[in-house]
Structures are given as C-alpha cells and as structure tokens.
C-alpha cells in the first residue's frame, strides 16, 4: 500500500496516491475509499504527485468510485498530476471525466467555492456498483 487518506472535512478527503496505484493495491484502495464514503466523504481529491504507475486496474477502481459517488452528488478530482499519470489520462481520454487541478489546495478551494457535493444532497448513501 502506498496511498494515504487525509479527511479535510466531513465530506472531503485528500488521497495521496503515492508511488503506484495498480493491480497490486487497487482492491485495498477501493476498500479504503468505500470506508470513507460510508463515513460521508463525497469529494475525493486524488493527489498524484510522485505517482509513477497508474495502470488499467488502478484507473478502473477510480472509475468504479466515480460511478458510485456520482449518483450521490459526489466528485472525484485529480490534483498535482505527475507526467506518467498524465500520459495515462491522455491515452484514455479520462481528462474528459475527471477535473484536474494543479495543486491539492486548488482542488479543495474549488470544493469550498460552492460546488460542494453536500450542497447537492450529500446525505445519499453510495449505491452498489452499477446501481446508478
């Protein structure tokens, strides 16, 4: 496991992805995200500074999280995206899905600036995969 969570408010968390998010730690990452979601977190800032590996499985669990959060008004955004991760984002065109910010602070400011998932009805519970 190379990632760590920092809950910054009742509904927002910063996830420092660390060196790698791939098939080796994706399941653990997903479980940790879901634990936080059960605690009410709806806005996830994924901090990719220093991340050298994001593979198809890692990207898959991010999409899974996104699919589960969106019906509840949640968001997943990317911050401090490293070049290797940027290549994956470009390759898969996922820049069309996940908003990117230059820094974690900028991502949190955007969250506090009025597009909070809580303001959009964040009391909903996360549904099962595919339950949109």
């Amino acid at each position, binding site marked *: 496991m190379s990632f760590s969570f920092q809950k910054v408010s009742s509904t927002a968390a910063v996830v420092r992805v660390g060196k790698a998010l*791939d*098939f080796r730690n994706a399941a653990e990452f997903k479980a940790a995200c879901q634990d936080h979601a059960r605690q009410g977190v709806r806005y996830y800032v994924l901090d990719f500074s220093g991340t050298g590996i994001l593979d198809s499985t890692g*990207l898959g669990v991010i999409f899974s999280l996104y699919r589960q959060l969106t019906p509840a008004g949640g968001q997943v955004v990317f911050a401090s995206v490293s070049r*290797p991760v940027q*290549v994956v984002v*470009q*390759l898969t*065109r996922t820049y069309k899905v996940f908003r990117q910010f230059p820094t974690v602070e900028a991502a949190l400011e955007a969250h506090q600036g009025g597009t909070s998932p809580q303001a959009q009805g964040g009391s909903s519970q996360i549904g099962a995969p595919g339950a949109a």
Partner: protein
Amino acid sequence: MPSLHVRGLDRFVDDVHAQFDAWAAVDTFRTAIGDDGLAVLRLAAHEWVANLVQHAEFCGPAELALSLEIVDDGLRCQIEDSSRGFDFVRQLDAQRSIFETPAPSERGRGLLMLVSCTEDLAFREVSETDPQQIAFTVRAPEDDNLFASLFRPEDIMLDAAPEDLPLPVGEEQGDGASDAVAPIEVRPDPLSS
C-alpha cells in the same frame, strides 16, 4: 540490445520498472520516442507483466527477460517468460466482451490497454523449444493520436454530452483513434530475430 533478466514472480513488476527508470535516463531512448513515449512503453510492459503475475502458471522458476531495441522511428520492447503460456487472443476477446456486461468489473482491461497503445504487436505462443514471447513497438506519440478506450460511455459519464464520451473499442470515429488498435500477429512458431 539492453536487456534485463528477472527471476522470481514477486520481483517482476518492481524490477521491470527499475529497468525502465534506468532506460528513461538514456539519451538515445529519450530521443527516439520522447519521455511520453517511454511512459507509454513502460505502461504497455507493465500491463503485460501484470497479466503474467496475475494469470500465468509457472511449472518451474518464474523468469522473465525484457529487452529494448531502437527501430526505425521507435522503440521495440520484447518480453519472454517461463510460464506455461496462455491463449492471448482468447483473453483479449474476453476483455473486449467486458463492454457487453451490465456492470463490468474494473479489472480485466490490461490487454486492451496494451494493444491500444502499441504498434506491430507480435505474440509467440510457448512451445517445447521456445518460451512465450511478446514484442511491441511504441513510436513518438503525436498529440491525441493514442486512444485506449477502456470504459463504456454509460459507465463513466452519467450525464455527459455524447460527444464527450470515449467510445468502446472498435467504435472510434474519425479522429485517428482507430489507427491505434493494430491487428495482432500471433506466431505459433519462433520469431526470427
């Protein structure tokens, strides 16, 4: 031809990435396809090795040989392993069928990624005399010329305009994306190198 030999399944991924770290510092490689091209090549190699680690069966010591070669206007990566091999085309077809399931798993897209972001992919099945081998080339990426469609539109953009949606493999339209999915050459016989 620079190469790496790894022994031990648990070391495959880390050792391959360590080797790519070293290759990323080599000017001739960086000049050949650029830093982004090297990142794509590393990703493709990672996906193959990840597939080996997760799905391959080894009857003896797990070994892997990785090599890199400058070709025309790109870099060609070759990976051999000591596994018992598997049906690459069947696995790839199975991954493509992920788009037909109601709620597809987030796993099982690695080969799609590999095929989408490389060119001149050649796969050699394991035989009594030769190990399983895969080889692929990455050329310097052009802007927006690479497209690995790994997710269904309805799974990723719940309220997006249709033009914003990545399309499933095989349904790319008119932006050069379809060029990124090259035919696979499967060779039952040893490759001539």
